[in-house]
């Protein structure tokens, strides 16, 4: 089995880069696969969301399989919102069959925040439970203590965290539990303030884990203000909002802000890499990497 490129990068203290892509709301994967093709040589993994924002889309596993078949290593996101333990274990075994090793375990947003708010939420397993499940399968048994037929799956599991969470002490306790259950890396909610990363780096130093700081390119001052008001864990500082207000090309400005931030993170060595979430504007990821000097 090919080793996880992401795992290798993180184990060798390379500044790792992952980018997030969402499966389409429809049946045509060509646009998203095109973006992945352009990106993949510059990133350590392409991270595929699982019904992002609790909305109906093609599945994470389907796009991950398409990527894996093209030699692009994906990170399979898997949440506890829509599947009970039987479905989650089946999904993980299927992923392993297709050579997908990187798994990101999440609790998931509530269906009421998505586009089918009438759905019945599952949440039988949370992020911690899914990590435990992956670990159990790797040992050759399922959660019902039944044996699997070999070869047993090999996963490289991660989880999410939120450096702006308040109270942060509670989030740090959650991180430690996730590490105990097998999380080898964390990707964070979008961060915009270097001071937040510095503090978080100090707070998590003893955990000896890998942290990929979340990068969300801003598209407009309105988007920044909206996220500040509504999106958990997001705090865009006022000076960035002013920069966007003054700029004549707001998308370009957002790309520049993101690229500058990545360069600073890399120079200061206060995290193990970045995770870029260009929600709905995935074409911009390449531009960000280029501006940050991470191409070529």
């Amino acid at each position: 089995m090919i080793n996880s490129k992401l795992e290798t990068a993180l184990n060798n203290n390379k500044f790792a880069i992952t980018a997030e892509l969402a499966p389409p709301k429809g049946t045509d994967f060509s646009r998203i696969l095109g973006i992945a093709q352009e990106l993949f040589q510059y990133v350590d993994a392409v991270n595929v969301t699982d019904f992002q924002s609790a909305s109906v889309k093609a599945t994470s596993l389907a796009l991950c399989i398409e990527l894996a078949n093209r030699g692009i290593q994906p990170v399979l996101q898997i949440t506890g919102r829509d599947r009970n333990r039987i479905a989650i274990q089946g999904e993980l075994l299927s992923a392993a069959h297709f050579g997908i090793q990187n798994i990101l375990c999440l609790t998931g947003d509530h269906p009421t925040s998505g586009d089918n708010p009438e759905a019945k939420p599952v949440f039988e397993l949370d992020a911690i439970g899914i990590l435990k499940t992956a670990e159990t399968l790797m040992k050759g048994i399922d959660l019902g203590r039944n044996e699997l037929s070999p070869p047993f799956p090999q996963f490289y599991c991660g989880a999410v965290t939120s450096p702006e969470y308040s109270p942060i002490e509670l989030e740090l306790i959650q991180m430690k539990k996730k590490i105990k259950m097998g999380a080898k890396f964390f990707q964070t909610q979008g961060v915009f303030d270097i001071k937040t990363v510095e503090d978080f780096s100090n707070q998590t130093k003893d955990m000896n884990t890998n942290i990929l700081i979340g990068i969300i390119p801003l598209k407009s001052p309105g988007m920044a203000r909206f996220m500040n008001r509504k999106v958990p864990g997001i705090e865009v500082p006022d000076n960035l909002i002013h920069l966007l207000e003054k700029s004549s090309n707001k998308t370009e400005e957002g790309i520049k802000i993101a690229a500058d931030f990545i360069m600073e993170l890399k120079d200061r060595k206060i995290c193990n890499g970045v995770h870029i979430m260009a929600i709905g504007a995935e074409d911009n990821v390449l531009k960000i990497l280029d501006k940050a000097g991470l191409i070529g």
Partner: protein
Amino acid sequence: MVITKNKDYNEILKSLGNNKNIIILGCSECASVCKTGGEDQVVDLKKYLETNNKNVQNTKVLSTSCNFLLSKKELKELKDDLTNCDVVISMSCGNGVQTVSDILNQQVVPANDTLFVGEKIRSGIFEENCRTCGECLLGRTAAICPVTRCAKGLLNGPCGGAKYGKCEVNEENDCAWIEIYNRLLELDKVELLEEVYPIRSYSESSSKRSINNRRKK
């Protein structure tokens, strides 16, 4: 306590169909506190049915509707009326309705909708606080129930979606896990959150549950 609310009288009337002779049973436990099955509510419903041409033969507020043997004894007093009656209305919780129905050889209909196990905050105000999950974890959560109060029913700490301490699912609710954390902090027991709660089994609670406490000892 089991919290109930009266159905619309109109709906109760409809559930009686063309049946004429009615007996109304109340319950002096939870349903009395909720004012859905005490003396006054029984009288109220009786008046309503009589103005709608029903013949309410008798009424009785049982001591504890959901106590099989006790209700059986108390219902003996209504024996004569029961033989002529078409339908019995039970103003108790859903369990009380079924207990009465198990005792009587008669059609029994509910007057109430049963809502939740909850607390009386003050007169007329009730709040849900326990989902009767069968495996109480209040001992590790500073006596705040995450099964009920966390919108995702998470057993192993918060989801990370809270903003300004409010739940991501409903901004009007405080995040249960932040409340638990704060209360544990006051009690100097935060370490209780560090232990991973094992993946729970749902096999016991997926079909009707019963216990025999006499077997233990």
